């Protein structure tokens, strides 16, 4: 129960954010951060309970008939993530207030940011796979809104769309994988699936499930070759990059891999798909990062590299690897969040993020510099910061890999060396050397801008000095991923003179050399010129282009823009699709017609027919409209007489509104005349008569056959006792089938917005596609 409330608080905050912004423009960041900070404390306080008593579960049925429930699970893994999400979320909320200042769309920004926070929290707390998928897609959508926040810039819009298409596309694969998993396991609840791990791994669907889920995880966590959306997403405001695209959202894929490890890991397929993918990603990311000069691009590619390392570790799957995964994840979130926020502060104060134009900032921005330097130490893996410990455990994991340990460790060392140089370029160089002269004189950033990075960076330092305090948390997290293995975590700065320490020393020396070498080439470097044409980003562009071409080709074929041809296609298709099965199934036609119409029904029928004939034959538009109105009203009256007053009422209202709409567009319509040649008119008449005749036949068949549906009887019987209403139609709409109705009104709203968009596009002289 209280886990649901943890989610409802940030969702509520997101809804309230625009109002809060409206009332208190300058203090918004602090005001909104306060409840998030309180949430962090609440989550943190649950930690000891989780360590002692195991996972905390809560369950609420949502749509039980399809296996969807609001079930949540707080275990060591989700606790670690939840703490990062809320804690860094609070700091970023403060930071964004200072960073964006009095931005006119600040309210919308905070609404999207907090909505993301809530969705991400839901993602890591969900115990139901379908629920997890819902939150997964919600994070993609809020990420879309946040990347495209500067909606006037085309680059931002493109990057937002790219991130959405890549991650939501992967999300669809993920859903398919989840559905298969649920089919095998008979449940979508993780708690119910975990005991069936052996069944899942032995099932013939294991391969497809693994492939689909990995597609979802790899796109979300920017694994090669899907990594390209992440650097492009740097179009987002810097607080967003720090929060979504370094600390939290991009780790969702890694989280999923860890979460599903008890079900899917420990197979050769798992090892051979995750470890190589992670290895390629960490190398490509680290090397590309060295070639960039834009601070955010450097940080983005190094994030890609770290995500590769985390995937690599998940692939190894040993207890040591999982321990390294947890520690590295924590260390990275702290230092990368800090470095992004530092980059934002530098950009805010100097107006540039180009490392070749930055230098000597430690004098003018001492606090920001301190945060940047400590974060860089952590990233480089130097003592006494948490990054050092995480790199040590990383080497341990490589050395103890179940297979190919030597090769894998070498790859890790190469990555660490490159990341060392990247840390220097991003976190050290802007603050040292001769002060450069960018456009203006930089000053120390305001408190909102340095508080976040300072806390994150010093957090990394603190945990480096007292790593013992992390042991319980890491141990519980690893136990959540590997439940049936004995886990004993010991974290300290000095483990004795072991191979990992030797490798550390080696990589620091090599990294320092690389850093000095790199400093001699200030400009940006094109990393893979020969391969540029094969770059995944190019493939994305061409795929999108091809899709658009296909769309416009089929639009030209199918969409003539004339209502008459649409009607013809729709009516013919409906006729064919319903007549063919009837013929195939040899539906018996009613032979005896026992209609016995009463005189007023006959009269009404004649009036309706007269209206139709007039509408068809008239040469005046007003007459046509009026006679169609007669037809409509006649049908409404028929409904009323035949005992369907609801339908009659709705039909009446629709008729009225149709007339009003026609009046509104009357002046815009072309002259009312006969444009279609006689042959076309004969064809239309045939189709119309056939469709009408078919409908009449259908009604007769339905009335003459005994229906064995128990549904109607059920609804009629239960409307009063269960639905507490006498109007059965309304009880069905609002109670028995309320979920359907909710879907329908959603479609209605979307359609209305679509019509609005089309009309406005025409108004503003928009070009026709």
């Amino acid at each position, binding site marked *: 129960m209280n886990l649901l409330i943890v989610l409802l608080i940030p969702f509520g905050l997101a809804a309230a954010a625009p109002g809060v912004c409206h009332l208190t423009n300058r203090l918004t960041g602090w005001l909104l951060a306060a409840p998030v900070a309180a949430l962090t404390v609440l989550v943190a306080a649950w930690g000891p309970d989780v360590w002692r008593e195991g996972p905390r579960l809560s369950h609420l049925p949502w749509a039980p008939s399809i296996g969807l429930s609001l079930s949540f699970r707080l275990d060591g893994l989700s606790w670690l993530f939840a703490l990062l999400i809320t804690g860094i979320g609070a700091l970023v909320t403060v930071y964004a207030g200072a960073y964006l200042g009095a931005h006119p769309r600040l309210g919308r920004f905070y609404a999207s940011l907090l909505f993301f926070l809530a969705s991400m929290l839901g993602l890591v707390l969900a115990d139901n796979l379908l629920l997890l998928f819902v939150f997964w897609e919600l994070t993609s959508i809020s990420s879309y809104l946040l990347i495209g926040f500067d909606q006037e810039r085309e680059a931002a819009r493109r990057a937002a769309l790219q991130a959405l298409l890549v991650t939501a596309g992967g999300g669809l694969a993920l859903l398919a994988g989840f559905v298969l998993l649920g089919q095998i396991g008979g449940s979508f609840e993780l708690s119910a699936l975990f005991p069936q791990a052996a069944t899942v791994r032995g099932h013939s669907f294991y391969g497809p499930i693994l492939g689909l889920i990995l597609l979802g995880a790899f796109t979300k966590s920017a694994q090669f070759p899907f990594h390209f959306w992440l650097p492009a997403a740097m179009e987002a405001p810097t607080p967003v990059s720090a929060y979504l695209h370094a600390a939290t959202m991009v780790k969702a894929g890694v989280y999923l891999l860890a979460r599903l490890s008890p079900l899917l890991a420990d197979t050769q397929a798992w090892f051979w798909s995750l470890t190589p993918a992670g290895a390629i990603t960490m190398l490509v990311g680290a090397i590309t990062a060295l070639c960039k000069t834009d601070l955010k691009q450097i940080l983005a590619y190094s994030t890609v590299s770290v995500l590769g390392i985390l995937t690599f570790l998940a692939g190894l799957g040993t207890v040591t690897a999982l321990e390294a995964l947890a520690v590295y994840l924590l260390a990275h979130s702290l230092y990368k969040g800090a470095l992004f926020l530092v980059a934002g502060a530098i950009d805010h104060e100097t107006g540039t993020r180009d490392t070749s134009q930055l230098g000597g900032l430690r004098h003018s921005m001492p606090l920001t510099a301190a945060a940047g330097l400590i974060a860089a130490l952590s990233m480089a893996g130097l003592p006494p910061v948490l990054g050092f410990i995480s790199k040590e455990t990383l080497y341990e994991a490589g050395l103890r890999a179940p297979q190919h340990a030597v090769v894998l460790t070498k790859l890790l060392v190469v990555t660490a060396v490159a990341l060392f140089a990247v840390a220097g370029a991003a976190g050290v160089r802007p603050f040292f050397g001769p002060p450069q002269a960018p456009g203006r004189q930089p000053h120390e950033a305001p408190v909102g801008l340095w508080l976040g990075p300072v806390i994150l960076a010093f957090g990394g330092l603190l945990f480096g000095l007292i790593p013992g305090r992390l042991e319980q948390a890491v141990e519980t997290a690893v136990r959540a991923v590997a439940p049936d293995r004995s886990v004993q975590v010991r974290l300290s700065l000095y483990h004795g003179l072991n191979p990992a320490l030797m490798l550390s020393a080696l990589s620091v020396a090599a990294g320092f050399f690389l850093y000095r070498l790199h400093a001699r080439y200030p400009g940006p470097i094109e990393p893979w010129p020969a391969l540029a044409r094969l770059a995944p980003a190019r493939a994305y562009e061409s795929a999108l282009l091809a899709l658009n071409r296909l769309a416009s080709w089929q639009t030209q074929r199918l969409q003539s823009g004339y209502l008459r041809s649409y009607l013809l296609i729709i009516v013919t298709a409906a006729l064919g699709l319903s007549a063919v099965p009837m013929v195939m199934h040899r539906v018996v036609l009613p032979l005896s017609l026992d209609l016995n119409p009463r005189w007023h029904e006959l009269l009404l029928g004649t009036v309706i027919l007269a209206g139709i004939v007039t509408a068809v034959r008239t040469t005046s538009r007003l007459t046509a409209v009026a006679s169609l109105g007669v037809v409509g009203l006649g049908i409404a009256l028929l409904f009323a007489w035949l005992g369907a007053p609801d339908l009659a009422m709705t039909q009446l209202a629709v008729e009225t509104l149709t007339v009003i709409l026609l009046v509104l567009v009357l002046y815009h319509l072309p002259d009312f005349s006969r444009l279609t040649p006689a042959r076309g008119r004969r064809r239309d008449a045939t189709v119309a008569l056939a469709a009408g005749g078919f409908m009449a036949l259908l009604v007769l068949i339905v009335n003459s056959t005994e229906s064995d549906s128990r549904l109607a009887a059920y609804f009629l019987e239960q409307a009063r006792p269960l639905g507490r209403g*006498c109007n059965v139609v309304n009880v069905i709409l*609002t109670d028995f089938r309320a979920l359907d109705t909710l879907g329908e009104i959603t479609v209605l709203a979307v359609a209305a917005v679509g019509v609005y968009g089309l009309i406005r596009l025409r108004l503003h002289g928009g070009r026709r596609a």
Partner: protein
Amino acid sequence: MRSLILVTASRYLAPLLLAASVWILLRGHNEPGGGFAGGLLASAAFALKVVSNGVAAARRALRVDPHWLLGAGLLTALTSGLPALLAGRPFLTAGWIAVPLPAAGSWDAGTVLWFDAGVYLVVLGAVLLIVFTLAEE
């Protein structure tokens, strides 16, 4: 050109139509009516205002943008499912409270009416969004 007859008539007709639409919404659970028919009737009231007094006047009478009605309606319908959820039952399960009436007996207030009010708002918003935009063309 404004027709004096239409302007005068709509001054009395529009409020009547609106009141009727609410009445239809409220009685919907037991007698013919409901959110859909009610919403259509309410849109007819504003559409009448568009024809008689022009779009600007109709927009002023509505006070909020039709877009807003769409969102508000969807949220209303959505939130009507939450009480059931908090009570530990499936989403959108109807819940009822007997409200004692001052005179005699009681009236069953249910989440169903809240849901239907959402339908009403969405229908109103959707129709007016299209009518207003067309009328402004």
